[in-house]
């Protein structure tokens, strides 16, 4: 892992100091995705975790389809929160360990852009696969037929928020040796609004009512965290790397 990270950052980012912002963004994005594809476990394990957590609920609660379809949106969303949390660690940890994170902070580009690229890469690798798998799991949980559109839309708008807010928590705990449990304590309370509005949108859709109100609020949360979170992440990284 160390080899790949340092090769890409050292040779491309710090030497080409006159990169445009867009090029720097694309460079980091490509780098993170390349690294992730060389460690496929990191992408697949959170997905497996997501599937297994969802499977556990019918076993624990009982197989009645009426109960399951009632709680399906909540289960899928809580499982999505937990599997995002599990995958967050990868966001900055290995870069911090091998020093390429410090190189990024030292580069002449605004940290905002580099951080945003890393978060986008994280979402593409963990949030997007969730959206593809969720409908299959929804079938297993007998989700109401009207709710599929709402479930996919809320996941599409909501999982980027999870990556963005989660990145703040990771950035704060990256310098700490055992930051994993602490990370969940910091991040989970901040996920609550997304969970509430997403599940309420899916429930409303099940009753054949319009759910654009909830979607609008999730979209607002997305825009808000998209604009503010990278700044918080950048300053948190500066604290963490000291």
């Amino acid at each position, binding site marked *: 892992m160390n080899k790949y990270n340092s090769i890409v950052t050292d040779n491309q980012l710090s030497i080409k100091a006159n990169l445009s912002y867009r090029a720097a963004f694309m460079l980091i994005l490509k780098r993170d995705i390349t690294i992730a594809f060389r460690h496929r476990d990191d992408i697949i394990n959170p997905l497996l975790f997501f599937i297994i957590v969802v499977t556990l609920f019918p076993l624990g609660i009982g197989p009645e389809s009426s109960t399951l379809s009632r709680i399906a949106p909540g289960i899928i969303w809580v499982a999505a929160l937990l599997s995002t949390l599990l995958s967050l660690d990868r966001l900055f940890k290995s870069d911090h360990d091998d020093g390429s994170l410090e190189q990024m902070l030292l580069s002449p580009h605004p940290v905002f852009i580099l951080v945003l690229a890393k978060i986008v890469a994280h979402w593409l690798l963990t949030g997007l696969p969730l959206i593809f798998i969720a409908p299959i799991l929804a079938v297993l949980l007998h989700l109401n037929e009207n709710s599929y559109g709402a479930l996919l839309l809320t996941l599409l708008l909501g999982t980027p928020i999870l990556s963005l*807010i989660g990145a*703040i928590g990771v950035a*704060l*705990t990256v*310098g*700490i040796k055992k*930051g994993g449990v*602490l990370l969940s*304590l*910091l991040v*989970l*309370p*901040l996920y*609550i*609004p997304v969970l*509430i*509005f997403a599940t*309420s949108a899916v429930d409303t859709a099940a009753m054949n009512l319009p759910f654009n109100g909830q979607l609008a*609020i999730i979209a607002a*949360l997305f825009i808000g965290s998209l604009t*503010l979170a990278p700044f*918080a992440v950048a*300053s*948190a990284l500066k*604290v*963490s790397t*000291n």
Partner: protein
Amino acid sequence: MWKWLHPYAKPEITYHFTGKILPWFAYLSAILLSVGIVWALAFAPADYQQGDSFRIFYLHVPAASLSMGIYVGMAIAALCSLVWQLKLADASASAMAPVGAVFTAIALITGAAWGKPMWGTWWIWDARLTSELILLFLYLGVIALHNAFEDKSLAGKAAAILTLVGVINIPIIKYSVEWWNTLHQGATVSKLGKPSMTMDMLWPFIICFLGFALLVATIICIRFRTEILARNSMRPWVRELVDKIEG
């Protein structure tokens, strides 16, 4: 204003200043609390619906509003420490966090004890209860992050960032939970001008509230002073203080 404020950026001066105002806070809070609590528990009229069990209100409401007030105070201190790099703002934020957490816990516990006779259950997933519980989680997160760092000044900065993220989130969480479910009674005291309680119930409440606020100020002052001493333990003025005490 800056000219008037800037001497207090020096730990030594702030230490002596807080030493001077601390007894005022302490004595005033002791007087107000002893008057207020006796009045509230023994002499204020009982509620026509809830009987005597409403008297826990005089503890529950001050604790709940102070728990939120302390978070706001902590966020202001965090902002000052991040923007102006004030070391003392850092110390005050870390002095406030545990006090706020304890008051949040008091509000939750007294709320549960009040809910049992009134609603017939200890806990309801009601908007205000839930947002207070989440506030407790936010406090515990800040404290845990503070403890996770070895270096005090790093810990202060990290906790400050988290506090600010939290303070942006608190209104969002509050409204999201409110739309999610509402059962709690509406505000009784904060309706300015026309509170929906009689004056002989309101007066002991105001006295209790001020008493608890000053109690918070006293505790935070003590913690703040200890924090200053701990952070400056190698400075000559602290050594002098220690020598003076040891004779």
